[in-house]
């Protein structure tokens, strides 16, 4: 990737992170898991995927199975111009569908999610249809690492491999955290790459915060066949050091001042003063 391309993506990712912080007040959101995904959605939506419009038949199809990081997706859809930025002020209000999880009424959301371990199989159904139609759209299914606890994911991988779903691309946001605990402390997942490979899925592992790495990873996967997986190593809370890599900042509801402080931290590195309760929801 060129320096200009990377700078362009970095500026988009920064704006997406600002939107995530804005959504972390007045009811809050899953801030940490959204920040870990910000660079991945930026890369997918503004560099890698073919997304001319939410309804274009030739578009690639993104299924956000770890739906609680939807603030990152909202940010990307706003940047795309598919979702009016003003609608984000309806977050958690009954007159709109801007919830803690994706809703299909939002342009660009291919399918609703929330309950973990569902969208791999839904994405597989879409990939099977594309196979029958001999279409070349890519189907991207974004899973969280905590979500990999769900048996339905592993069941789905077995079937995806058996059915040779060529159009299926799985992306793992490997931010090392379940809701409350480090994955390796609660339900260890490593060696994760080997697990996916042993299930018949071609897999590469890169940094989920390096656009060059993401680009290289997806290029490597283009050279192989069958269902593919990119494990993106990420940091929960990435971009706001006060939130980074902390088990107690899974779901947060911050004050207006704290959001302003965290925005300063994001933009200028000044440490935010955070006194709001650590975990509001478990």
């Amino acid at each position, binding site marked *: 990737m060129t320096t200009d391309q990377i700078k362009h993506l970095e500026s988009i990712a920064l704006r997406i992170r600002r939107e995530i912080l804005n959504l972390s007040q007045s009811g809050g959101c899953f801030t940490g898991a959204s920040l870990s995904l910000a660079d991945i959605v930026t890369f997918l939506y503004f560099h890698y995927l073919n997304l001319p419009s939410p309804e274009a038949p030739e578009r690639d199809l993104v299924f956000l199975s770890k739906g609680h990081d939807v603030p990152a997706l909202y940010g990307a859809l706003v940047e795309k111009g598919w979702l009016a930025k003003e609608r984000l002020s309806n977050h958690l209000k009954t007159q709109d569908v801007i919830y803690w999880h994706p809703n*299909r009424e939002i342009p660009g959301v*291919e*399918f*609703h999610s*929330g*309950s973990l*371990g*569902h*969208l*791999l*199989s*839904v*994405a*597989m*159904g*879409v*990939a*099977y*249809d*594309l*196979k*029958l139609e001999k279409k070349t759209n890519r189907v991207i299914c974004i899973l969280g690492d905590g979500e990999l606890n769900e*048996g*339905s994911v592993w*069941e*789905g991988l*077995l*079937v995806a491999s*058996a*059915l040779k779903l060529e159009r299926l691309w799985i992306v793992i946001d490997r931010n090392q955290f379940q809701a409350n605990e480090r994955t390796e402390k609660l339900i260890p997942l490593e060696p994760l790459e080997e697990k996916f490979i042993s299930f018949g899925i071609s897999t590469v592992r890169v940094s989920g915060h390096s656009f060059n790495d993401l680009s290289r990873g997806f290029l490597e996967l283009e050279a192989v066949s069958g269902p593919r997986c990119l494990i993106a190593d990420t940091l929960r809370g990435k971009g706001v050091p006060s939130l980074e890599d902390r088990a107690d900042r899974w779901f947060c509801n911050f004050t207006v001042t704290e959001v302003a402080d965290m925005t300063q931290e994001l933009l200028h590195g000044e440490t935010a003063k955070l006194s709001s309760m650590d975990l509001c929801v478990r």
Partner: protein
Amino acid sequence: MKYQEKLLALSQDNSDILVMTAENRAPLREIIPDLGERFIDTGITEQTLVGMAAGLALRGRIPVVHGLASFLTMRAFEFIRTDIGIPHLPVKLVGFIPGLLSEANGPTHQALEDIGLMLQIPGMRVFSPATHEELVSELENIIFDPHPWYIRYTQREHGEAFPFIGKEKIRSWGQANKVMLLTHGTLFTEAYQTQKLLELLGLEVALLHVPYLSPLPEKALLNSIEGSEHLVVIEDHFKGGL
């Protein structure tokens, strides 16, 4: 015509129809070679089966999804509710060996909750035919209906002429009486024989077959039971079915 012959004929007329199963192949076996890639066996994976059906329906396909009634409706219940029910996708779920028909397998295989569970999903249609003939006669309408459906599969035959259900979606035998037997699905013949036996004994008993449990043909049902002092439901299901 058998179920699988009808399903194949419909599939040959409409390429959107896909036949799916979680390795329960018995009532499909003869047509699998003819379906080619439009037959999908996901193995013993009810959750993946249902999730994939949702994805296929999202693309405009009509998945006809087969599984053992107990495993399909219970193992995959949340997938049915969340991925088919909430978006109201036109997936057709077909539960094999419902009720107590699998008694030799023990309690794990019995499906005495399937209808009740499916009735809990808003918009889910439920059809419990008395005979194989009734199942086949209604299949085309159900497959091309835009709603999600749960069908209780049956291989039973009734022996004597069994008139097709009319547009009121219920069928009655005997005169409106003191006692009305209500039934659906696999226990129809037993309910029918019971009604005939009680009639012979001089008791005033009528029988009503209600194969469509959702949406329930309420008006026709209320008209039919009017004047009955006692209603007796005969079904192979726990409380919460008909």
